[in-house]
């Protein structure tokens, strides 16, 4: 079974839109992209798309009720929502420093979630 997908390249401001054909989970052809970087992006985007996750977790005893957090590396795109749901149940206590690990190895994906700012205690 062959599948054709249109992919918008996000690597540079030219924003080329190209076509990728996939068969048996493998990329067969890549066309219409302006450069090899775009082709490489498209190959990964159709087979194993990845995203950073930024969200917040609840804080007890802090200057603010929420702490912004970020994944240290990219996560599989289809796991982003479950990771966000998982972090919705996390509460940390202030004080917190930027880079503190808030949740290690989230959903066993091998990626840590860290604080993206300092947050003092009240």
């Amino acid at each position, binding site marked *: 079974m062959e599948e054709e997908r249109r992919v918008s390249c*996000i690597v540079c*401001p030219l924003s080329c839109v190209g076509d990728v054909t996939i068969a048996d989970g493998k990329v067969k052809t890549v066309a219409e992209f302006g450069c090899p970087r775009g082709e490489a992006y498209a190959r990964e985007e159709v087979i194993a798309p990845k995203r950073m996750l*930024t*969200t917040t977790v609840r804080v007890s005893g802090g*200057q603010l009720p*929420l702490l*912004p957090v970020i994944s240290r590396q990219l996560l599989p795109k289809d796991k982003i929502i479950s990771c966000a749901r998982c972090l919705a149940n996390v509460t940390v206590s202030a004080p917190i420093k930027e880079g503190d690990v808030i949740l290690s190895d989230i959903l066993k994906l091998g990626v840590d979630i860290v604080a993206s700012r300092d947050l003092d205690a009240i």
Partner: protein
Amino acid sequence: MHEEIFDVVIIGGGPAGLAAAVSASDNGAARVLVIERDRELGGILQQCIHNGFGLHRFKEELTGPGYALRYIKMVEARSNITVMLDTMVLAVAADKTIVAVNSRDGMIKITAKAVIFTMGCRERTRGAIRIPGSRPAGVFTAGAAQRMVNMEGYLPGKKVVILGSGDIGLIMARRMSLEGTRVEAVLEIMAYSNGLTRNVVQCLEDYNIPLYLSHTILAVHGNGRVTGVTCAKVDAAMRPIAGTEFYLECDCLLLSVGLIPENELSRELGIEMDGRTSGPVVDQLRQTGLPGFFAAGNVVHVHDLVDFVSEEGEIAGKYAAWHANGKMGDCGCLITVKAANGVRTAVPQVIRAVSGNTEPVRLYMRVEKPEKNVTLAILSDGQVLLERKLRVAKPGEMIVVDLPVENIKKIGDDITVVLKH
């Protein structure tokens, strides 16, 4: 009234103000003050928890708070910078006395040798774009909603429609989706999104959120709370097309319809404004038409990259310090910079040709509409000073060009920036 004296006073503690403070201190200003009305420094960055900040400056992709923290630490490391938080500036007089207020000291009078405006932007509200219909609760600007969701911890609604597809609207569509809110649609009156392709892909397509281009909202429904909106397609003149109306049910409408520089203070001083940027007219040193008053960041023109905001802050800080120390000297002859023919804005709006100028002048420009394969040309007296080929040009992405000193010497009375097809 409590009174204080400083060399350089900076109004607004966002990225522009923080960079200005660090630079003023590093360039010889003895006493620097940053006045911020919020409870902490960092400005709008503190609510922009997504990543994508600082690629130019720090060569890494930081979150908004992460970027702010780097500058807050630089400010804290300089003992001659004082920060007043929870303090609102009410008025600035031409003799550089500033009246501010906070709950600790009441009214404060501050005297400065140089003043830098870094008050940022305000969001356009419903009034500014005049949507008819009832006035129910549940209508917010996207930035206000961003602050609620990311800093205060409550959701503005469960079923949302977003009007406006600039980056703030797109980022909020993803943010609300991650928080479990349904985003019904994003509507955009223009035929294109002003947001980055990356945001269209990662904030809308990833969450299957429809983007309706050339669409607008005709009416907001609901008594007490929003219950839905009537939408329609628009024609090339942006008039709704009869027969294309449809209804979207929602309990929340977010408006992401543009930012306006916050210039009440500068306007009251009678500082000359640029009708296109809605900010003060500045020269390449970021000095306004009133000597000793400088401006940087979103207060001058709406930026999309914080890196350039910091850069402007640094320039303003340096020359405000020079002004405070009496080092500015002859202010040179004035060359006006005009944007025309497809170029909407150009900053700085004036260039001072001071003898002994050694630095190139960096011009920041925005085009009127998306274009492909055009040439940006900088002209003076009919002569081409510089040309730059652009494969794409989008209104949402600022164009940055350095004008070398040799070129400035060749300039007549003014320069014009145009697009050639």
